């Protein structure tokens, strides 16, 4: 998939808001494969809403969202599944890990689906993000910052054209935040993929191609 285009998209909750000054909502915006975007927003501007539109979790908007020119509202369940497996990887703000599984299992539950990464690769990622000793630990027992790193590894365990990360480093110190940013960059570059990162303040330092204010 090469482009995600928003054409006058407006969440229904903002339908009656008159003083909307957004560079995304009600605008023509195109996200292209291979580029890096930072979307900054104040709280309540629909940051997570934006992400949930892109992965087909919600569609309560007016306007058109076009995936490679196809209207997102017309995609079937099967097509969305395919999209979530192969084209858009999403690092959820609320992580959506399974607390009763170990961090290794949390990654494998995705990787078995895609068959994308080797065990050695995943081991390497755990190592780089400094949680190699937490592989067998239940995710429910880990700190939020550690969980954010597990969630990133899970997000990397699939092929993607767009890596969508919703406040990925909110609970990390700068060193760890930069580590994550580096890893995201490397993997995205390796696949020629785009990165779309949202933030309400603290954000990953990357050579962004475009800043957007939501």
């Amino acid at each position, binding site marked *: 998939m090469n482009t995600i285009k928003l054409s006058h998209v407006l969440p229904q909750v903002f339908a009656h808001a008159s003083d909307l000054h957004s560079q995304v909502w009600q605008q023509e915006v195109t996200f292209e494969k291979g580029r890096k975007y930072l979307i900054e927003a104040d709280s309540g501007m629909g940051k997570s809403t934006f992400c949930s539109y892109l*992965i087909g*979790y*919600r569609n309560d908007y007016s306007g058109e969202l076009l995936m490679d020119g196809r209207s997102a509202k017309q995609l079937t*369940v*099967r097509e969305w*599944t395919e999209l*979530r*497996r192969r084209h858009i990887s*999403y690092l*959820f703000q609320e992580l*959506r*890990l*399974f607390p*009763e*599984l170990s961090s290794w*299992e949390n990654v*494998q*539950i*995705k990787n*078995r*689906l*895609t068959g994308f990464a080797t065990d050695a690769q995943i081991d390497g990622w755990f190592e780089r993000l400094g949680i190699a000793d937490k592989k067998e630990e239940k995710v429910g027992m880990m700190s939020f910052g550690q969980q954010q790193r597990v969630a990133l590894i*899970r997000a990397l365990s*699939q092929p993607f054209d767009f890596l969508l990360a919703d406040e990925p480093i909110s609970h990390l110190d700068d060193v760890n935040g930069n580590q994550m940013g580096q890893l995201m960059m490397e993997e995205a570059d390796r696949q020629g993929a785009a990165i779309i990162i949202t933030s309400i303040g603290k954000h990953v330092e990357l050579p962004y191609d475009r800043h957007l204010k939501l």
Partner: protein
Amino acid sequence: MVWKLLRKHISVPQFVGFVFANLIGMAIVLLGFQFYRDVVPMLTAEDGFLKSDFVVLSKKVGTAQAISQRSLSFTPAEIETLAAQPFVDKVGQFMAAEFKVDASMRIDGKQVFNTELPLESVPDEFVDVLKDDWSFSEDSALVPIILPRSYITMYNFGFAQNRSLPKVSEGLVSLIDFDLHLRGNGQEAQYKGRVIGFSGRLNAILVPQSFMAMANQRFAPDAEPSPTRLMITTADLSGESINQFLEDNGYEAEDDRLNTEKTTFFLRMMITVVMAIGLVISLLSFYILMLSIYLLVQKNADKLQNLLLIGYRPSQVARPYQLLTIGLNVVVLLLALVVVALVRSHYMRIVEVLFATTSRSSLLPAILLGLLLLVVVTLLNMAVIRRKIVRIWHGKERM
């Protein structure tokens, strides 16, 4: 791994409750059906040895006739009138033996029983037996006989039961030859008798007409045949005209067939009620299962949603639950079939003695019905689960 994730919140007591309730319901439904398939053929069994569409007519016995000794036999004129009726295809006369017949059976030279037998015959065209079996020749001296089935029942329940004698079946009786001793007109003769079949509809001990004609000629040459019973074949058994005719002439038809129909009707009604109860229990248990699954899916809704969001298909997520219900349903079916087989083996023993016959029916009806129910219920289960998961996909279930 998905299973590991989703099996949490499974309530074992709920599923045990379902299995138990559904087992009861299923067993009742299958048992009712099986019982019906086992017993009704025995009740409605056509006599293999007689044409099926016949009616036996006799004159009504009233007090007046008993006192006046008015003849109960049909005159040739009456028979002709009857034969001329539009509803009558064929008329056959019962020919009774006008001589004395004693039947006796010996085992190891010891006489087991000795009784006088009222033999009768009907024209061969009313008897549906292979010609070879239903013929008599002077050379062989073997007389084929058709007995009323009630004789065996009478023996088994009225006699053998009380005297702790072994019960006999049709097959067994057919294997025994007995001696027929004929006397009359100053002559005596000895024949072998062999039972070749039983009739549930004719209350007569039948022998071939050729034998009867020969024997009457020989042992009672002067006797006038005076049939007291006639056999007619008719296409329209329950027609208005036939009833009117019988009424006008003071004849009556042996309504054995009507009795069977009544019995079958009541049996059918009873079994329908029983099966309906079983079905209701099954439905309720199905409801329990659906509720448990709903609850389970609901409790796991957030996990299911997460799986869907990271790229699992609704069908993949639904599969563990579907397999679970299929497994439970299969277990229930197997248990129910075991119950049916056990109960059936018990009642078939009674039924077989009661009808003095061995059944050729099998457990197949219950198995087929069970499989049918299994398929229907399982498809329904799968559809419901699938629907629930799709609702989660569309974010319509609260998490």
